[in-house]
């Protein structure tokens, strides 16, 4: 036991965990900064500038403030579930990073069913929202929870089905292998990314992913103008911050997954000295994720949100049939070739 605890592979594993966890938590905090900055620029204004250079200390101030804010538990609330909910929301959101390959060797665990693992873990995230909304014992949170659970179940279907085509082509469920399968190029200049083989699946995936993470134009669960704050209306202080962190973590997860499935993960041109070759894949990976995040923020700042029934119709009547058709066509092609 002791030998194992001091063995190099265990220490390496620990280093990876600490590094990835720290990196993810840091980037989650700075996602809020990025979002506020990008949205400000879209809206012709500077955004946070006063707290640190370019407002860079803003997330730290926000986080610290939350730590020292009074934590209110409403008297009518179900205390146990009210406290449990943000934990249930945050832990699965963070767990999924354990199987994401941030680089050729920068992965905590390469499960053979890594992709399904992520789907399984993120599908548990809905409990945080549902329990939080219900435990608050208040109407707006409950409505938010209802909307959210219905929405997440519906879009999970199309999300999962959209990647089946990719799986048929790659023939693996391991995220590491999915990435390596996309290495190389066609004709020397088009990267062998799945997005070129599965464009429809990519679109379905991105749309459902936005819906899964409750972001505009699908942010019905929160919808500030309708439900005040949605499921987290009654939450204050760190618990509210945990919900927010979970939301951003989910954003990061689905973006990372989109990168792995469709954009070749960490693959990209490697050049320069050895240390640069070591770092470059991670940089490509982070860069590709950033594109998605940027897209997310742009969407949030331009589009109005759907109505509840339109959202459900869109999922069941548009996305799901499309995803099924995509699977059918892909399987036909795979069978023929």
């Amino acid at each position, binding site marked *: 036991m002791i030998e194992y605890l001091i063995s190099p592979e265990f220490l390496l594993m620990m280093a990876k965990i600490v590094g990835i966890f720290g990196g993810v938590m840091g980037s989650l905090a700075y996602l809020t900064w990025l979002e506020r900055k990008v949205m400000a620029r879209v809206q012709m204004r500077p955004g946070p500038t006063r707290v640190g250079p370019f407002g860079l200390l803003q997330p730290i101030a926000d986080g610290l403030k939350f730590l020292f804010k009074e934590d209110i538990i409403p008297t009518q609330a179900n205390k146990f579930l009210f406290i449990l909910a943000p934990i249930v929301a945050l832990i699965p959101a963070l767990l999924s990073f354990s199987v994401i390959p941030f680089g050729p060797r920068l992965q905590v665990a390469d499960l*053979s069913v890594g992709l*399904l693992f992520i789907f399984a873990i993120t599908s548990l995230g809905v409990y945080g929202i549902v329990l939080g909304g219900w435990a608050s014992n208040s109407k707006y949170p409950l409505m938010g929870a209802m909307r959210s659970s219905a929405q997440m179940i519906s879009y999970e279907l199309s999300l999962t089905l959209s990647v089946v085509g990719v799986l048929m082509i790659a023939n693996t469920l391991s995220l590491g292998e999915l990435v390596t399968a996309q290495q190389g190029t066609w004709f020397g200049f088009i990267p062998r990314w799945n997005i070129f083989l599965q464009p429809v699946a990519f679109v379905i995936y991105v749309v459902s992913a936005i819906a899964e993470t409750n972001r505009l134009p699908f942010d019905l669960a929160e919808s500030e103008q309708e439900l005040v704050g949605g499921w987290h209306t009654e939450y204050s202080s760190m618990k509210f911050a945990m919900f927010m962190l979970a939301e951003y973590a989910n954003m990061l997860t689905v973006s990372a997954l989109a990168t792995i499935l469709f954009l070749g993960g960490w693959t990209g041109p490697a050049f320069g000295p050895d240390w640069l070759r070591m770092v470059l894949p991670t940089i490509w990976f982070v860069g590709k994720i950033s594109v998605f995040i940027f897209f997310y923020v742009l969407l949030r700042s331009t589009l109005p949100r759907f109505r509840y029934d339109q959202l459900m119709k869109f999922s069941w009547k548009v996305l799901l049939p499309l995803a099924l058709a995509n699977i059918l066509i892909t399987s036909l092609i795979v069978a023929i070739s």
Partner: protein
Amino acid sequence: MIEILFFFFAALAVGAAINVLVQKHVLYSALSLIVLLSSMSGLFILLRADFLAVIQVIVYAGAIMVLFVFVIMLLNLPEDEDGADRLRWLKFLGIPLGLFFLFLTVITLWNVERQDIVEAQMAGTPELIGRSLFTDYLLPFEATSLLILIALMGAVVFAKKDL
């Protein structure tokens, strides 16, 4: 290490299962069931049946139980309704049924041979499961799908009166 984890998950599963039965509030029962399912999937992982473990969580904990919880919250049932009068006799039916299942399990385990266990360790991969589903067990598989389809249509007919 594996033993510790096994006992941990097993204890969690049994505890959660008992909790499902004894909880007064139906929502807590449902939540305990989720814990039970999750610890079961932990046990599957220990058996190297990764695929089963993950599917267990996706299908049961992540989808079906969400619907359960959803419905419970929608109805907002009061705590412990003692209106289970018509189920009074089922309690007594439960004892022989339980014994019967125990008997079945013991029989099955008794007949398992050692080399089967080794093979089972390999059976957890998606490829093997897919292969056996579409070759050896094709008929039951298709029959189940048909059954589910029928149930689905029935549900739609019930839910939508003005078709």
